[in-house]
């Protein structure tokens, strides 16, 4: 059946607000009588804090509060609780907060920060994750064994390994013994930053009863509430997290504990007045979050015809000074480590390792970009050696409907990989002669979603037929408000314009695990569908009485209930509500979705992914023979979304994800000095793609309906930048015969390799 709202490229409901400048972001909000907060950050990557002298800062007129690590003893963290709100005994990365000031103006707060004196005793710095795994390496966290953590997390006490994970399927030794060829390669990836154009912000207020309200750019308001409550030893009801109406991008960086920890520490001392902080761009680079640098060793055994028999993957994820989401990034990446292929013998070992560097965590792709860099680069090394074209070898090994997942946890369904590969490669000729220094490249990939995790929604139908959708899904830019409105409208039989979508507020909007992991369309979509269906059922029940028909014999279209047998018998939502509720009442529809309704799971992150997203990308490049500069000239991205709720926003995700992946492939890298300092924390020295770098992009939506998804939908956003870096590297190899194994592929690096003939 064709739907009126679902599957339509309905214009975004937030677009007019955003093109007129009336959309309110965090820094645009007016916090009555707020003080301004500033942090003092450590210049050292690893040092004992001997003494902090705040006396002079406190004497500065206009200063309202100064806090240090001694003022707030709290450890937070989603999977492993290792993160102090303010460093107290020692600092573990350059940029870590050691004190904070609240003052009447930003200028006074800055001045006061300069007046704080800290005595440090420098400690040995460890920046290389492989060296950090050495038993003799300096320990970033001496008390790792004492930290609380989720059941699935496995820290190794007395080391810098905060999580290790292993997946074994079959017998890799047997598989390698039976192989005709064996390939062994090591690939590395660099540290990058999310660079959402809106910097992180937060404001906090503490009332006389000790209840804390936080306004914050965070992609999981309920998750943050839980994190804060656990860290501060407060019941959930004492913490209220409110999202600003809009968030200026996040890509994973705006989760976990960030700026609000400092605001809360300060607000505990400002007698009910709020404290607001906005990070500078430099602080966003050094002190918010980065993507894990990684070292990935991959060994693959194949038959002469290209069939993969065995694959062993060792991955090391450098999570920096605190675990943040590192352990689960490492875990999720490990489950996807062998690539989306049918391989009988698999062994994956993942290590998440502390170093004295900026904190790494979630970044669109959640670790899959790194493993895809390895397995997709190596697929082309194998294909070239065996004389098979890049598409053929992938199609030969690709997972299909009903296959066991590569690391053996589950049977796969809604598997659109083959179609993605075929569509992305349609019309591509691999064997024709082509211009010198022009290359074609291909890569594919898959991505899981955090499982199990829950979402709830409420649908409120008011007396004039207006519909409010109460959800804690955050509009980060992805278009969630529009898509959830489409789903609610579809189920209720009203136009999208009848729906208003709430802004998250943990006191008012029901639970949602987080707006991450490409989970919202699926999880919150299911909750919204149930909630709207519940409201619909209540409306039909009332209408049935009015129309004298059984509910089962009623239909709904454009906000009007009618008898299926006699369309003249009809009543509008407005009249249903008026009829039933003359004294005033709302219809309240409830909906919750949790993949594990039996409640038998072993906690967050413990179950196999409820769905997998698949995608394939084709790239063409020109390489400048003189300079090594790479120009990407064409990209085709085919992505399996299950079902596209809004094709235009899906295209936007594919295009945006591809360019966001092209940056780290060719130019982006946070440079870390020997002492752990960030050397390029600004947009002049850290290069982002601009409009001039954009090639022709062809987004292709593949639909392989997922039986569990709302209208068959899965997710998309995170998958879109997974295959792009290896696709570009493969095209560069095709163009100049040089294989680069460490990202990014800068002109300098490529030219050097071309001259050395690697």
């Amino acid at each position, binding site marked *: 059946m064709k739907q009126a709202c679902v599957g339509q490229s309905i214009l975004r409901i937030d677009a*007019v607000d955003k093109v*007129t400048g009336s959309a309110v972001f965090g820094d*645009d909000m007016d916090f009555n009588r707020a003080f301004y907060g500033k942090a003092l950050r450590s210049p050292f990557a690893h040092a004992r804090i001997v003494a902090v002298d705040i006396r002079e800062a406190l004497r500065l007129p206009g200063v309202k509060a100064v806090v240090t690590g001694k003022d707030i003893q709290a450890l937070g963290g989603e999977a492993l609780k290792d993160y102090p709100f303010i460093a107290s005994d020692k600092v573990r990365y350059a940029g870590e907060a050691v004190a904070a000031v609240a003052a009447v103006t930003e200028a006074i707060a800055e001045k006061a920060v300069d007046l704080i004196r800290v005595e440090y005793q420098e400690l040995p710095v460890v920046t290389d994750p492989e060296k950090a795994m050495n038993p003799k390496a300096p320990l970033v966290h001496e008390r790792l064994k004492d930290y609380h953590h989720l059941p699935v997390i496995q820290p190794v006490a007395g080391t810098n390994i905060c999580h290790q994970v292993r997946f074994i399927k079959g017998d890799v030794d047997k598989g390698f013994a039976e192989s005709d060829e064996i390939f062994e390669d090591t690939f590395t990836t660099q540290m990058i930053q999310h660079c959402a154009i809106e910097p992180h912000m937060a404001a906090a207020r503490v009332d006389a009863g000790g209840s804390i309200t936080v306004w914050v750019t965070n992609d999981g308001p309920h998750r943050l509430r839980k994190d804060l409550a656990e860290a501060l030893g407060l019941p959930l009801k004492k913490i209220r997290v409110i999202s600003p109406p809009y968030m200026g*991008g996040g890509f994973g960086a705006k989760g976990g504990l960030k700026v609000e920890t400092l605001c809360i520490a300060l607000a505990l001392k400002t007698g009910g007045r709020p404290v607001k902080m906005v990070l500078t761009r430099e602080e966003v680079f050094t002190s918010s979050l980065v993507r894990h640098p990684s070292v990935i060793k991959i060994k693959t055994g194949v038959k002469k015809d290209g069939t993969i028999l065995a694959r062993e993957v060792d991955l090391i994820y450098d999570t920096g000074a605190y675990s943040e989401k590192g352990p689960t990034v490492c875990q999720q990446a490990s489950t996807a480590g062998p690539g989306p292929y049918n391989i009988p013998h698999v062994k994956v070992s993942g290590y998440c390792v502390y170093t004295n560097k900026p904190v790494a965590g979630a970044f669109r792709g959640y670790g899959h970009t790194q493993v895809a860099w390895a397995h997709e680069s190596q697929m082309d090394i194998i294909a070239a050696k065996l004389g098979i074209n890049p598409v053929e070898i992938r199609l030969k090994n690709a997972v299909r409907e009903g296959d066991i997942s590569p690391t053996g946890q589950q049977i796969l369904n809604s598997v659109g990989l083959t179609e993605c590969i075929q569509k992305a490669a349609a019309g591509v000729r691999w064997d024709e002669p082509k211009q010198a220094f022009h290359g074609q490249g291909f890569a594919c990939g898959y991505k899981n979603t955090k499982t199990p995790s829950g979402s709830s929604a409420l649908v409120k139908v008011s007396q004039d037929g207006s519909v409010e959708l109460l959800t804690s899904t955050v509009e980060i*830019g992805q278009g969630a408000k529009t898509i959830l409105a489409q789903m609610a409208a579809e189920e209720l039989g009203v136009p999208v314009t009848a729906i208003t979508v709430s802004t998250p507020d943990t006191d008012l909007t029901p639970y949602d695990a987080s707006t991450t992991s490409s989970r919202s369309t699926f999880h919150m979509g299911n909750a919204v569908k149930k909630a709207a269906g519940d409201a619909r059922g209540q409306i039909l029940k009332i209408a049935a009485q009015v129309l004298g028909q059984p509910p089962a014999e009623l239909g709904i279209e454009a906000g009007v209930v009618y008898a299926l047998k006699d369309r003249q018998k009809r009543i509008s939502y407005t009249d249903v509500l008026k009829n039933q509720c003359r004294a005033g009442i709302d219809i309240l529809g409830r909906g919750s979705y949790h993949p594990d309704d039996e409640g038998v799971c072993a906690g967050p992150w413990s179950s196999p992914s409820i769905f997998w997203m698949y995608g394939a990308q084709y790239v063409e490049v020109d390489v400048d023979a003189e300079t090594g500069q790479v120009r990407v000239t064409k990209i085709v991205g085919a992505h399996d979304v299950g079902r596209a709720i809004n094709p235009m926003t899906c295209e936007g995700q594919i295009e945006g994800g*591809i360019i966001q992946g092209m940056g780290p492939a060719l130019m982006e890298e946070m440079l870390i000095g020997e002492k752990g300092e960030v050397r390029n924390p600004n947009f002049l020295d850290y290069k982002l793609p*601009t*409009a001039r770098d*954009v090639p022709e992009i062809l987004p292709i939506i593949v639909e392989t309906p997922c039986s569990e998804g709302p209208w068959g939908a899965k997710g998309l956003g995170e998958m879109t930048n997974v295959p792009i870096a290896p696709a570009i590297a493969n095209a560069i190899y095709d163009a100049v015969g040089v294989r680069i194994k460490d990202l990014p592929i800068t002109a300098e690096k490529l030219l050097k390799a071309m001259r050395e003939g690697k």
Partner: protein
Amino acid sequence: MVSIELKVNGEIYAVSVKSNETLLDVLRDKIGLTGTKKGCDTGQCGACTVLLDGRPVPSCLMLAVDVKNRDILTIEGVARNGALHPLQEAFVSEGAVQCGYCTPGMILSAKALLDRNPHPTEGEIKEAISGNLCRCTGYVKIIQAIAVAADRGSVK
């Protein structure tokens, strides 16, 4: 503190500012026009772009005291009499908006382009917005929206 008059979106605002206050901070904090965004405060991201006598400038690098009596156009002044500018319409219809944080600056850079060059090539469009960083869209639909607005015939 210095008392100055700023002409923003055709209206005169009398404000008292410090000599080191940027136009961006004065627009946002003293005049209350928060549509102009702060992304880096160092002139590197383009989110704070406004038009100064029709030319795009990063308002975070302009001192408020230096732009008195000049024509300043912010995103709030682009729609006229409640009607969206063709660029704004095209950004909506082409799906050029995601998070929206770069959008005001993008639209103003594009407006400056179309005002002096109503029929730009794709290369000219890319050049005109190359100082405006966007991390969501991959620029594709933004470039498309500007081309569509140019086709529809932009009005000043």
